[in-house]
């Protein structure tokens, strides 16, 4: 009995030691390979995922909205580059930015610009890689008769000035807001580009962080309104036009529909070869036209307009 106990304790210690060793290995491998393989950046649009003699191990953490895409692409990338090991973790945009900024991960996935979450000096150290665009649309319960909402109407609804659908051209029914928590990147995007101002957390409004829950609640609750990324839209909810414009990929790409945001993958400083190859693969046509579209994002290459952190749009 005593021996068993001792053995188990020993095992614990060993595991703990292995922990430290393991972590160092990972980091060393990632950084020591920086110069060992050829820079893959010269062929950003190649249909083959970069060179296959890359090696290294790195971690991409952050946004849970971006995680499925990164996860899926990383698997493909690892299939082509046997020496590379990529771990993808979801923990929220804030966590991703913190971790990449403090060197705990090599890539920080975020729904928002780093400047919006981190202190200016910390954000300045990070290099932005915009890998996709996510469009958002206001959605309502299918029984709401309204098809179109203007910017002002949305502002009135989300700031509590209008509380009944009849004031915006619908039936006589109370409006039930399904919002996101104030820390949410989705909410920040929606406020910035659809409302043009901050919205209030109104008394009685629902707040859910998760898109699936928002969809479920909007679909089930009479008179509900919320907003979702385009990839979540389906028949259980009704998508409303914004200023008469439908939320479609084309409208977003040509700049007529303004409610969209970049999905960012941040690195601290310039990435090393393996990370760079991966990021390049991320924006290659092979990924952009397949996985990105498949998962409901809009390829960055398709965009005819660009936007900076302050929201200024350039053609």
């Amino acid at each position, binding site marked *: 009995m005593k021996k068993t*106990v001792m053995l188990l304790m020993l095992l614990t210690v060993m595991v703990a030691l292995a922990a430290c060793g393991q972590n160092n290995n990972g980091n060393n491998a990632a950084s020591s390979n920086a110069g060992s393989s050829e820079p893959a950046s010269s062929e950003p649009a190649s249909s083959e995922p970069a060179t296959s003699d890359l090696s290294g191990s790195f971690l991409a953490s952050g946004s849970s909205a971006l995680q499925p895409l990164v996860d899926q692409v990383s698997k493909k990338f690892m299939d082509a580059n046997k020496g590379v090991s990529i771990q993808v973790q979801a923990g929220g945009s804030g966590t991703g930015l913190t971790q990449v900024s403090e060197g705990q991960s090599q890539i920080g996935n975020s729904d928002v610009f780093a400047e919006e979450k981190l202190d200016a000096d910390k954000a300045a150290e990070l290099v932005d890689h915009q890998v996709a665009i996510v469009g958002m649309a206001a959605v309502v319960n299918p029984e709401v008769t309204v098809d179109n909402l203007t910017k002002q109407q949305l502002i009135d609804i989300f700031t509590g000035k209008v509380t009944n659908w009849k004031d915006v051209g619908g039936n006589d029914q109370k409006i039930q807001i399904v919002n996101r928590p104030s820390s949410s990147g989705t909410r920040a995007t929606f406020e910035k580009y659809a409302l043009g101002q901050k919205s209030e957390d109104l008394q009685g409004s629902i707040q859910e962080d998760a898109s699936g829950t928002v969809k479920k609640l909007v679909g089930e609750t009479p008179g509900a309104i919320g907003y979702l990324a385009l990839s979540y839209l389906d028949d259980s909810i009704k998508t409303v036009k914004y200023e008469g414009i439908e939320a479609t990929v084309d409208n977003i790409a040509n700049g007529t529909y303004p409610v969209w945001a970049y999905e960012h993958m941040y690195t601290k400083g310039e990435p090393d070869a393996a990370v760079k190859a991966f990021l390049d693969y991320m924006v290659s046509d092979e990924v952009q036209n397949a996985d990105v579209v498949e998962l409901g994002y809009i390829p960055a290459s398709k965009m005819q307009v660009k936007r900076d952190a302050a929201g200024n749009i350039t053609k």
Partner: protein
Amino acid sequence: MAQSFDRQKAKPHIAEEWVGKIVTLLCIALLIITIFSIVYFVASKGLSTFFKNNVNPIDLLTGLKWSPEGEPPFFGALPFIFGSFSTSILAALIAAPLGFCASVFMVEISPKFGRRYLQPVIELLAGIPSVVYGFVGLSVIVPFFRDVFPGQGIGIAAGALVLSIMILPTITTIATDALAALPKGLKEGSYALGSTRWQTIYRIVLPTTLPSLMTGIVLGIARAFGEALAVQMVIGNAPHIPRSLFESASTLTSAITLSMGNTAMGSLANNALWSLALILMLMTFVFVFIVRFLEGRSKL
């Protein structure tokens, strides 16, 4: 022979005794270090809101407006505190009579059936994962409340109902133990005087076991207070004190889970969440002390 093993064994067994003592002492030390580091880290993070970001703690505790990303930001956590207390106390109010009835059934009415069926059933309730409770709450209780009561179905009532089922095992187990531990003579004396079972229960059993029952209830409240996911799924999460039980509200735990991943470590919004965690932790300690106090009384 006897002499020989005296000399041989004298040293090793003393060493063995010490090894045993030190190894176990180290284990308990580890436990103590853990709790202290939890307290230290949560406190240092939670307090930095006040020291580094100069948020007034009184404002935090009494403020009604929570908008950490706003310009200027507001950090009024009272709605969360209110939400946490109201859901957990309401949950205890629902669960306590149920738990008491179940334990009376098990101890006084039908010990055989109770021990065989009711007790395993109640222990099973304790084993069901909280995400499953949240899932069932969102799919069954919320739509039901939405149809039956005015409002959206989500809110304190839904949260409290889900929690009450979750804490029922805690309350029942402690109540059952208390009832079973009652001296036999006490009840027999009452029956001998011609009292009915119910009279015995509410005149003799209930008053004597009250401190233990309260212990169970406080432990139940403590558990409900700290529960996160199940509540977050059904409560709605609006940072306001709701006007009715069926209106979206928030608890400390739901506010933390909702935003922790979205905020960057060290930022003001993040620190504010740690302050909520600190409040949550301190409240847990208060509950432990209340339980200790009650346990002290029940021994008298």
